[in-house]
């Protein structure tokens, strides 16, 4: 008798759990579109690749362009800046990366980086800070002439976006 009652309870429990599981899957399936609509829409994603001409950017000059709504620094570095960036030993760096890893071979004078501080996204100010690179006024992060973080709360170097040289004076970002 006792076993029969147990048996009945198990069957009923199974039905409860099965019904609940189907219900939960249904709720999740209905919720997903309502969450997914928050993601970047097609018109935002369509702007993912741009081309940019480097003509007219003199040595020591920087420009800021927009890529996917994000500002991007394109800097024509001076030989002294490149020298300063290369003379730093990796042991001193919070996010160790060589200058070569942050530029394209044969185009070392060009530095292309997303212009948002890796801390909380402010746009750092150029040619300032304790390392003559960039200084973020929001929370005091200092970057060197290769855009590598040297001091402050930022956890990583300024991000180099995926880009390539189509010719000596034309780059494609994205």
């Amino acid at each position, binding site marked *: 008798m006792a076993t029969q009652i147990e048996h009945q309870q198990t069957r009923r429990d199974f039905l409860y759990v099965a019904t609940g599981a189907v219900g939960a899957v249904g709720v999740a399936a209905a919720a997903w579109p309502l*969450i997914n609509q*928050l*993601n*970047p*829409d097609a018109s*935002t994603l369509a702007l993912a690749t741009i081309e940019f001409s480097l003509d007219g950017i003199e040595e020591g000059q920087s420009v*800021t362009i*927009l890529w*996917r*709504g*994000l*500002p991007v620094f394109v800097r024509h570095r001076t030989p002294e800046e490149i020298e300063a960036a290369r003379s730093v030993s990796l042991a001193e760096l*919070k996010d160790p990366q060589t200058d070569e890893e942050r530029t394209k071979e044969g185009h070392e004078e060009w530095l292309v980086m997303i*212009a*948002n501080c*890796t*801390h*909380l*996204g*402010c*746009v*750092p*100010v150029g040619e300032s800070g304790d390392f003559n690179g960039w200084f*973020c*006024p*929001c*929370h*005091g992060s200092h970057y060197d002439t290769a855009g590598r973080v040297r001091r*402050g*709360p*930022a*956890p*990583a170097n300024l991000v180099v976006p995926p880009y390539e040289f189509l010719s000596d004076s034309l780059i494609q970002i994205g």
Partner: protein
Amino acid sequence: MSEHSTYQPGNGAEKWLDDRLPAVRFAKEHLMDFPTPKNLNYWWTFGAILVMCLVIQIVTGVVLAMHYTPQVDLAFDSVEHIRRNVNGGRVIQAVHSVGASMFFAAIYVHIFRGLYFGSYKAPREVLWMIGVLIFVTLMATAFMGYVLPWGQMSFWGATVITNIFSAIPIVGDPLLQLIRGGFAVDNATLNRFFSLHYLLPFIIAALVVLHIWALHVPGNNNPTGVEVKSSRDTVAFHPYYTMKDLFAAVVFLIPFAWFAFFAPDILGHPDNYIQANSQVTPAHIVPEWYLLPFYTILRAIDFNVLFINSKLGGVIAMFGSMIVLLILPWLDRSPVRSGNFRPMFRWFYWLFVINFIALGYLGAQPAEGIYVLIAKLCVAYYFAYFLVILPVLSRIEMPRPLPASISESVLGKAHS
């Protein structure tokens, strides 16, 4: 608490309604006859003041939404349009923006009153935790509201605060894009913030109902921290406290009106009268004053701890500063509620108040030089107060003798 009700349906219609929906009975029990300790001081009026603030924000906010346009090219101008062209818009917009500051001023007083008089202790833990939830939701609501005028501080505040979520390992970046609806703060972000800024006040209103419900189960704490023992310790909420709260609300409205009429922009930031520009960060980003203490905690962590980098560390510290509030009832184990009877606690409490003001001051200063060091010390004290000082005090402190009852504490003073 129905045993305290003296409600007798007056006529046939009231009796008929009372048998079907006892709304009048409910209001009489909870808004009029509710037995309230007779020794509540003016610090206890801020609950009612906060309800008033919420009503002011909802009413002015609904009206502003009739004229505001949540679109990146139009939002900034539409706010100026409200201030210059809409009938009475200058005052309505000022009351709403000043109202946010006054709301926070009142909620900070309310929270610090609870901290001093031990209002978070058993049996009021759930009441306290709902209050913390209201506070956090209020911060989120105020932050999103500040984004809507789409000035420079709006935009960069939104950028910095949404970026907090990118610190979360693995899911951080997809989550950030989900929150922003793009790779940067843009039109999609502005639109959803407007939608949520309209929704959240009603969520807060629902939480307030739960807060008052949780209050009316054990009843009010009071300045002695001694529980109500008999009806001699209490008076009816109406008219005694409705009048006291009303008087306090009128006094509270004096500085409120002064700000709204004479200095509506004094609590804001001049940079927010420059339209948002995604390529230029203002030299000095500061949130509104009421978020500054938590902003200081966020940026004070500029060093890596083991595998946690400085950015994630700051985010953990900031959320941690709210989570310690949530678990406070289990950190302070002293059986004595009121700081009036805790000689050691009082020193640490007032130091905590000064420390919290200092955290706010530091949030408005640039993150350089001596400020960085002081900020770290202040953050350390903030956490030490909750995690070390209160647990230790509850073991070593010898409290002063408590009065036998509220009635005795009130009458004893008069007789001696």
